[in-house]
């Protein structure tokens, strides 16, 4: 029986690598801190998210309360605005009525003023006519008196100078003509 001596490995060759399962535990030991770090990070992240969510919920609640308060305030203001608008409309109506009434009163005053002036002018006219009528009456009376006097003279004409009688007759005629003209003018004025 022959034994084969062990063959030395050829020069330039190294020993073969160990099987893969031979280094596992060392690798797992190296990954553990990283996993712990990731876990801590995840926990921190979860905590932050929880705090943030809680804060946002609280703030949302406060905003909602504010919104309700402002909505209520807006509703009150709207109601007040409606009331103010109604009052404004009523005030505008009252103003329109008041200005209309002022215009009416101004017009009534103006018409009364016109009537007053017209009445005064009419009274002045009446006074002038009355004065003229009185003058006409006096003139007509003087005419009648003069004619009576002339008749008396004519009844006893021989006692007077004929030329004087003629002159007196002409004077009476002139006086009566003027009185008659004045009377005609007055009648014409009254008729107009």
């Amino acid at each position, binding site marked *: 029986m022959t034994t084969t001596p062990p063959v030395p490995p050829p020069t330039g060759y190294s020993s073969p690598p160990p099987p893969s399962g031979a280094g596992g535990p060392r690798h797992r030991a190296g990954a553990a801190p990283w996993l712990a770090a990731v876990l801590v990070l995840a926990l921190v992240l979860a905590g932050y998210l929880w705090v943030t969510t809680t804060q946002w919920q609280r*703030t949302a609640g*406060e905003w909602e309360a504010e919104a309700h308060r402002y909505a209520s305030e807006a509703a009150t203001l709207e109601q007040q605005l409606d009331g103010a608008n109604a009052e*404004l409309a009523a005030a505008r109506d009252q103003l329109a009525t008041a200005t209309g009434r002022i*215009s009416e009163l*101004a017009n009534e*005053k103006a018409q009364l*003023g*016109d009537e007053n*002036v017209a009445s005064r*002018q009419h009274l002045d006219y009446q006074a002038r006519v009355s004065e003229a009528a009185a003058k006409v009456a006096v003139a007509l009376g003087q005419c009648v008196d003069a004619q009576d006097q002339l008749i008396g003279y004519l009844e006893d004409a021989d006692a007077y100078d004929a030329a004087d009688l003629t002159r007196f007759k002409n004077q009476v005629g002139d006086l009566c003509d003027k009185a008659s003209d004045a009377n005609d003018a007055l009648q014409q004025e009254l008729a107009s």
Partner: protein
Amino acid sequence: MRRGTRPAAVLAALIAVTTAGCGVLPPLPEPVPSEIVPSPVAGLEPAEDSDSISPDGFDAVQRMAVRVRNVGCDELSTGSGFAIDEYTLITNKHVVADSDNLQVSTYDGRDIDVGTAATAGLADLAIVRTRDPLPSYPVLAESDPEQGDDVTIAGYPSGGELTISSGRVIGSTRDPLNANLGEVLVTDAKVEPGSSGSAALDDQGRVIGVVYAKTADDDSLLVPISTVREMLADAAAFEDVATCAGP
């Protein structure tokens, strides 16, 4: 050497991811403010008609118009007029002619003490100076209106209530009454005796003419503002009006 680089790279990557993640994460909310100041609202318009209301509820067109009562020696006539400044008003020459006493009243019935009156020689215009202040006066337009322009007339037709009538400028013509030198304006705004001396206003409330007559077709005749301006610029154009009672 290779064994020391790898954890460092992983750490760097982790820090980078964490930093980037912080940007994605929602921030904490701001505290709710105790008082909320509203933003100013742009484009709010004033209430309707608020610009045409004066302190006493009458608009400028009514406030500037005056009623003129001409108490003659034997008769009475009325006309209209309008203020051009605090103590001066314009009316027609025929409104103040043959007067013993001129009486002026405002839209609200107040009597205005009259000083002197002067009439123009070449137009049916008169200027009346007052001792009491007049309530309001309009702006005189720079130029005559064009055909088709809106016109508003404020006056006292037939000596009655203050009335505002509207129409348009129809055109211009030679004065059929020969009371004015040059052309006069014709409008379809209704006027009556008593409207003489009323101001005719454009759509901006400026005086564009003075009413002095009406035609057989019920159109109104105006002394144009250019003539009014010409007369006002020439002090010699007006002379004191003679009263029926004598000087």
